[in-house]
């Protein structure tokens, strides 16, 4: 005999069935843990966010006082009440531009070499070497640039002036065909500083690019080779398109570092407050070198102006870094990797 399922009415007197309540709220030790972790997080937020807020707050009086001319004025003469970061902004950009022109191709080639061309046996060593290069302090690259590279860079600048002097940014205010060339006009330039900064930027960009290249799906690489492609054909059609986001992002991360570099630049350049596109000529300045050079004898108002300059630098770096991380994250690179 078949029993029919009980009808609903037969359960009428049964106790009410309700889903058990799950307490997501932490209790006891967990509560303490959660609260203290939140407290630490809030502290760090306060410290780091406080710096940004402090810089922004300090810039208000300066920007009110000088207005837009703060960005266009090139002189930095506190005694005459003329302050502006036009020259140092141009200097910062030109040093960073020189650094990127040198560092970008080298970083790309090195990353390609490590990920595709190097023998598998020494690949791990090469990766460590690039990481080590990134860990070398900037002061050491500064000394390298100042004592070893600068004389050669000056000679190279002379050669560039003699042969490409008609280009506006290779012009130098000195006679290229003088019997004894005036070395002092060719050293301490944005070009010399850019070489040292390039050494700092290069390993960083290279590491990001190599990381992305190494995530290229091996199946696609093998497919290209199986279709008869040469190694370069495989790199050109598979690896580089896959790693495009990494190439752009790594370069921009490097640019962010190049903009904020202080000590190597301070060691090499001769400070000068002129807006000039002539990167080979002596004398330039960057925001960070300006801060390092002028903080000591600054009054309260000047200190506020220096903080404003620092804030502007920070905002520029922040924009560059944010764009870089967006590009790295949104590109196809890294898709499908299960971290």
């Amino acid at each position: 005999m078949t029993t029919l399922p009980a009808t609903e009415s037969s359960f009428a007197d049964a106790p009410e069935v309700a889903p058990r309540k799950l307490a997501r709220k932490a209790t006891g030790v967990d509560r303490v843990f959660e609260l203290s972790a939140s407290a630490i997080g809030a502290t760090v937020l306060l410290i780091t966010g406080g710096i940004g807020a402090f810089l922004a707050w300090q810039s208000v009086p300066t920007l009110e006082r000088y207005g837009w001319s703060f960005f266009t004025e090139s002189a930095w003469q506190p005694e005459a009440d003329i302050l502006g970061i036009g020259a140092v902004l141009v200097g910062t950009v030109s040093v960073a531009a020189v650094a990127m022109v040198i560092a970008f191709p080298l970083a790309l080639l090195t990353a390609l070499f490590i990920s595709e061309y190097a023998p598998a046996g020494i690949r791990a060593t090469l990766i460590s070497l690039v990481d080590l290069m990134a860990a070398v302090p900037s002061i050491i690259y500064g000394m390298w640039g100042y004592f070893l590279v600068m004389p050669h860079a000056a000679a190279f600048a002379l050669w560039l002036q003699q042969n490409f002097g008609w280009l506006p940014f290779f012009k130098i205010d000195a006679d290229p065909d003088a019997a004894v060339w005036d070395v002092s006009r060719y050293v301490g330039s944005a070009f010399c500083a850019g070489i040292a900064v390039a050494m700092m930027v290069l390993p960083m960009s290279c590491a990001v690019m190599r990381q992305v290249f190494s995530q290229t799906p091996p199946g696609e690489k093998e497919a290209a080779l199986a279709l008869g492609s040469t190694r370069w054909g495989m790199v050109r059609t598979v690896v580089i398109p896959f790693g495009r986001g990494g190439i752009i992002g790594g370069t921009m991360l490097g640019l962010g570092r190049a903009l904020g570099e202080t000590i190597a630049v301070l060691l090499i350049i001769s400070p000068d407050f002129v807006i000039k596109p002539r990167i080979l000529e002596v004398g330039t300045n960057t925001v960070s070198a300006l801060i390092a050079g002028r903080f000591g004898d600054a009054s309260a108002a000047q200190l506020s102006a220096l903080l404003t300059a620092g804030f502007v630098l920070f905002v520029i770096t922040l924009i560059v870094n944010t764009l870089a991380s967006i590009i790295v994250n949104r590109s196809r690179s890294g898709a499908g990797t299960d971290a």
Partner: protein
Amino acid sequence: MTATTEQAVETRTFLPVLDDDAPPQHPRPGLGKPTSEESFTLIGTWVAALAMSWLVTQRLLPLGGWAWLVVSWFALGILFTIVTGFMSGRRVDVVDRVAGAVITSGALVVGAALVSTIGFVVFRGWEPLLHLNFFLDDMSGVGPRDAFERGGIAHAIVGSAIELGIALVVTLPLGIGTAVFMTEVGGRFAGVVRTIVEAMTALPSIVAGLFVYTVLIVAIGFPRSGFAAAMALAVMMLPIIARASDVVLRVVPGGLREASLALGASRWRTVWHVVLPTARPGLATAVILGVARGVGETSPVLLTSGVATFMVTNPSEGVMNSLPLYIFKGARSPEPMDIERAFAAATVLLILVLVLFVIARLVARTRTTARRRGLLGRLRRLTQHSARTRETT
């Protein structure tokens, strides 16, 4: 008859034995390996280019100096690669070879730059390093022209150690604590913290130094001291360490956490006994690399610590020197002896960074890879094995 002998042979079965170190039975086919003709062409091309460039630059044209030699070697090498490429292949092969040559040369240039940096610093600074007092003395009362028998950088090394120590005491709990908060507690507030921390990694170190200088020294009136320098370093290192630890903690497999929670452990015990131990090598690497960054950072220290020529061990009052600051001041000095001392100090700093870096690498290796890789791992496995057999017998 033959069948019976075969039967006699086949009565025993041999189990295959896996020997890790034995060479493969068949020689592996060298896929993609250049044939002898190809490697001869490659070497011949570059030797010919070197000879040609020497002839052109040093004998025919007035372009003396090694710089022109190297540049023309590269240019002629590419040219000869194209010529020899067309002798044996088509356009595709030529492009492939040229691309390979350019990429390899680019990497060689970078390698040469790294070697020249390290070699140049050591070459210019080896002489003071030979005197033991360079590591044991300070520079008080030592003139710029005194011989290397007098004076040293002990005060700078001690200063760097004290400043970094204080900075670490501040950043280590805060940095790792924030990372734990961001990954383990989560929520909307954690997202805000993560955004801000990531943004602050963009803070240039000089601005961090200027911030501490303005707040601590100008506004509060704290003297220029090791403590102020440590604060500047901490402000700089905090976002770096927090972000790196966050990345490390995020890759701890979620299954481990869930297993611990399913066994009834509280969230605190899960974090303390499962998540943090799993991530320990990665966290150590993050911290060590943060320290390596901090030890060489000059600009925050330049603004906040002042320069002392004598030993200072009290971080709260009085100026204090540190390694990067000593190097910077020495490099700007007009005295050649000071510059040489700066190079020697730079060598010490370089060695310090190298040691920190190697430690980070060793710590980052998980136990399994350490066992598999390298002579050291193999040795360790051997000793462990013998120890185990000794225990059992």
